[in-house]
């Protein structure tokens, strides 16, 4: 009996092989197995014989749409700035997309980073990805040598232990609170859509922080982000971060200090989060990539909550919806705008 993921893997391979051998796509973006338990690597198959390397499991935690713009660009002839794009169709790329990844592709299409005509989206309804950090915590950080994934359990073993873990107990926080597991845009669908998920309160973690006093929030913020090494893995695995030069990398002028001084570290995280407002799909790549376990996802989650409450919008749900923060409506709430009056005690509207 093969597991759900084994069946999906098989289906991915056959679709990728078909797309590559027919020449419909020039490359297929998926995952291959990693060198350690609980790791999977983003992988680009370019030849039909590469597809046997493709896999699907609960450790495909990074959002593949992050690679899409540069992969598409790699198939374009080089041109000077201002030079028009070449005539005729450009090669296509196949890509796997779960619910949140597909929503990021929608955002990329709307922000002109990805051409819809050039991607073949293989949609997979997500069952939630696993946090390896949670698994490590559950086995008291003992050295894990092997993890076998079944449909609902993980069999985790080391040199001196064997433990069976309920998969749902170690699913990432963003997946636990996800309400849109199905791809919103796809050309091929693998598996059955699971429909909108019911979650009692998907903003619970945010509400907990909102309930704190200013001082307590500051304490939480400074403490939770203190281990940051400024590696920018959170930024670099994020499909929303595609500026040619990030504000932290500008040297003329330099906006942010380079050390791990608290002011600079916190400024980076706050600004990074704000740049994602109205665009973030809570895919959780940032947290999964962080080497020191910083919960930076909660900042973007807070902004997702605000954008939903104020503009009734969730990022990337449809190609037709305008981007919430680049569209002005006179009825938009403006209570957060600091004016002379509000500073004098006008407060929230």
């Amino acid at each position: 009996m093969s597991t759900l993921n084994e069946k999906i893997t098989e289906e991915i391979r056959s679709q990728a092989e078909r797309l590559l051998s027919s020449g419909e796509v020039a490359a297929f973006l998926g995952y291959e197995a990693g060198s350690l338990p609980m790791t999977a690597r983003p992988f680009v198959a370019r030849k039909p014989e590469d597809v046997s390397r493709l896999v699907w499991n609960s450790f495909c935690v990074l959002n593949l749409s992050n690679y899409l713009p540069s992969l598409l660009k790699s198939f374009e002839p080089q041109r000077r700035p201002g030079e028009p794009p070449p005539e005729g169709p450009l090669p296509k790329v196949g890509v796997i997309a779960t619910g949140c990844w597909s929503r990021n592709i929608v955002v990329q299409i709307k922000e002109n980073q990805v051409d819809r005509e050039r991607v073949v989206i293989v949609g997979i309804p997500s069952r939630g990805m696993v946090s390896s950090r949670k698994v490590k915590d559950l086995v008291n950080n003992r050295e894990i040598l092997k993890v076998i994934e079944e449909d609902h359990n993980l069999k985790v073993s080391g040199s001196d232990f064997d433990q069976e873990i309920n998969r749902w107990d170690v699913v990432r926080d963003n997946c636990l609170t996800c309400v849109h597991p199905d791809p919103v845009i796809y050309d091929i669908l693998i598996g059955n859509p699971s429909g909108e998920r019911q979650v009692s309160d998907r903003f619970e973690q945010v509400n907990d922080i909102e309930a704190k006093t200013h001082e307590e929030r500051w304490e939480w913020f400074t403490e939770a982000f203190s281990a940051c090494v400024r590696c920018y893995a959170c930024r670099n695995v994020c499909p929303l971060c595609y500026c040619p030069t990030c504000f932290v990398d500008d040297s003329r002028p330099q906006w942010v200090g380079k050390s791990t001084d608290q002011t600079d570290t916190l400024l980076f995280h706050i600004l990074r989060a704000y740049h994602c407002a109205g665009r973030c799909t809570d895919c959780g790549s940032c947290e999964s990539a962080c080497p020191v376990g910083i919960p930076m996802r909660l900042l973007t989650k807070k902004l997702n909550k605000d954008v939903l409450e104020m503009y009734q919008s969730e990022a990337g749900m449809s190609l037709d919806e305008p981007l919430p923060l680049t569209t002005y409506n006179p009825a938009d709430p403006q209570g957060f705008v600091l004016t002379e009056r509000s500073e004098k005690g006008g407060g929230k509207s």
Partner: protein
Amino acid sequence: MKVLKFDRQAIGEWLSKLAEDYDIYAPGESSQGTWQLISDYSQIDIKSGVPEKPVKNFLFPQPETLLTFSTVPDDPDAFKPREPEDSGRKNVIFGVRPCDARSISLNAMPYEKDTYYKANMEKNLIIGLTCNTPCSTCFCTWTGGSPMGTEGCDISLTEIEKDSFVARGVTERGDKLLCLATAASEASDQDIEKLSGLEKDVAISTDITALEETLKSKDMMELYNAPFWKDIAERCVNCGTCTFLCPTCYCFDIQDETLHGRGRRIRCQDSCMFPLFTLHASGHNPRGDKVQRVRNRFMHKLKYFPDRFGSVSCVGCGRCVRDCPVNIDIREVMRQMLTF
């Protein structure tokens, strides 16, 4: 050199004694990431394998103030460099794994004439802790180290059986610290026998031998132009996780920061994974593409450094293997370079 035997309580008493004159740091449950200032032995929490952050953070403080200055215009000493303030207190770093400890002496090669690095070596005393259970990401023996290694340590501790430690003085100043361990006893011949037994037991088996010699014998330009760099770089997201967690990545940036009339010149860790690392003032970037940066990191560690200093600039701690978000495994890169 002294060889003493400790139980847990004796270590605790010893550290309490040392805490009178030194700041003691050890792996613990800290949100700061691993190294925690401790006042009590019970706060120490050492797991198998290496702690999250490398010991280099004591040798290359993040950031390190090189000098300070005033920026007040009518201050007669405005913009004149001043020595940064220093309490003069030294650190004892407890529980440093052999790979991390070895990184201190490897980094000392390029930093041979760096007064700041020398001062930090002077300031930090290293109490090593050998490894009884190597992890799946450990490969210190590939790179010339050993789970029982003492290089870079002032004292090397080994747990010869549960809660029973043998401490070997490695340097003179290590011996001096051991003299303060009044609750410890001289190690018996039997203890020393157990210690040498362990040295044989915990070796990490590998088919990789003579890594340095083979890499040194390779033609630099052929390796540089090898086609596999493109494959390795393809999935790399160009973050700095590998470089910031690597104990032997030692590159830095120098910045002047000023605030409210005071300024400081700092040196902070930098990463060759970032485009800004090599950006010229002209706007030209000699390593403008990701593949060039990825190649440089590995070539520096595994070719340029051994060619110049003899050893590979990698101690096999496995942090980059463990924490790379896209699972770039330096062991695979080594194999590719060795067989190319």
